[in-house]
């Protein structure tokens, strides 16, 4: 009861995490290399493109020191294709970007946010984990860097509606022990749907608690009749309930 916040992350926290994503900018001014806690930033030389974290890009954009190059998936044609996919397949989400081939055995594989899923050379046919937050923030701060920001904004809204409706319908297939496919769901969507989905699962589990209890009792009886090796372990488990 210490924090009055619900479990999970709040939208500002999710957006904060999203600001670690790398985006591509075209600087307008020189900037020396910076040594930051999160790693060094290369020097910015005006005509050359550079990949910087989103927070830095937004800062430079606001000071009119750089232009942001929107990631390729954040443009009307790919978004329309993804929206078509979403409406065509009613029960799955559009797949997340493909992971790069597994590296050789002595290096660790990269995972987001260290994969450049939002830079100018990212894949154009899939929504990365932070698609909604990143899209909203870029559209807000750098709408003039988009070719057609209005239709991008409209498509993002449409995608969000379709996918939230799917998340809501998904609970109908849940039961106390089941699950449903959430591959490809983004960070902000998870944050929004978490309270509802966990609430439904908790409610179902409460209703089916007596059935689980019976099953557990039956299992225990069978185990005690069959072999007594696990009886101690099981007793411990019962006390914790």
């Amino acid at each position, binding site marked *: 009861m210490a924090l009055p916040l619900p479990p999970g992350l709040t939208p500002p926290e999710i957006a904060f995490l999203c600001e670690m994503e790398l985006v591509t900018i075209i600087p307008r001014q020189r900037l020396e290399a910076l040594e930051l806690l999160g790693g060094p930033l290369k020097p910015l030389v005006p005509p050359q493109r550079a990949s910087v974290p989103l927070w830095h890009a937004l800062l430079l954009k606001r000071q009119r020191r750089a232009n942001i190059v929107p990631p390729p998936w954040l443009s009307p044609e790919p978004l329309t294709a993804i929206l078509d996919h979403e409406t065509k397949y009613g029960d799955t989400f559009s797949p997340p970007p493909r992971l790069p081939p597994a590296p050789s055995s002595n290096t660790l594989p990269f995972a987001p946010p260290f994969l450049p899923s939002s830079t100018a050379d990212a894949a154009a046919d899939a929504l990365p984990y932070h698609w909604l937050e990143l899209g909203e923030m870029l559209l807000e701060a750098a709408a003039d860097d988009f070719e057609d920001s209005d239709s991008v904004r409209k498509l993002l809204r449409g995608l969000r509606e379709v996918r939230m409706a799917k998340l809501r319908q998904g609970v109908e297939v849940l039961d106390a022990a089941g699950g449903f496919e959430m591959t490809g769901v983004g960070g902000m969507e998870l944050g929004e749907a978490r309270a509802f989905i966990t609430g439904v699962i908790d409610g179902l589990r409460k209703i089916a*608690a007596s059935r689980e209890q019976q099953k557990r009792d039956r299992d225990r009886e069978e185990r005690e009749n069959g072999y007594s090796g696990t009886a101690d372990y099981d007793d411990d488990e019962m006390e914790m309930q």
Partner: protein
Amino acid sequence: MSSYYDVDAILTDAQKVPCAFELTVPGLGFLEGNMSGDMKQGSKVELPLWLGEMLALSQSLNTSSLVTLDPPSALAPRVLNALKADPRTVDLRALAPHFYNLGARILELFEEEEMIDVLSDTFKARAAVIADQAHNPRGALGEGVEFMRGLDENERQLFRASHDSAKSVRAWMTDLKNK
């Protein structure tokens, strides 16, 4: 599972269930409104769940229990049939303010496989409608009012939780614009 101070658990246990006395109890007639008389054998009274449960489960010396419990009217076959037909139109709040909690408590006492299925399906079907209402940016108005009034306490919490998360995402988006 639930805490000692859980208000919802306390209120669930305070709901009345029909009980039939198996023995004649001297001086207990006030439960029936019979101020000075005895509680006759076989008489039926509505007792709070916690009291009825305790009396039904306690074994007195002569091995027969004091009362027998019946499922409350909120979980009568009539109600379950109505829920099977269409979960959305039943006013659960009028039946019992803590309908699902009451159901879970009753299921601890009785073995009713079918009731578990009916309650789970009801909860799922109604949860989908609740989510739609909670994400409605104009608020739960219009044709939803009747349904929203019939939500039980669990469902109200669910509605509040999903409404709050939708609201905080919307607030974040408007914050972006004001920066």
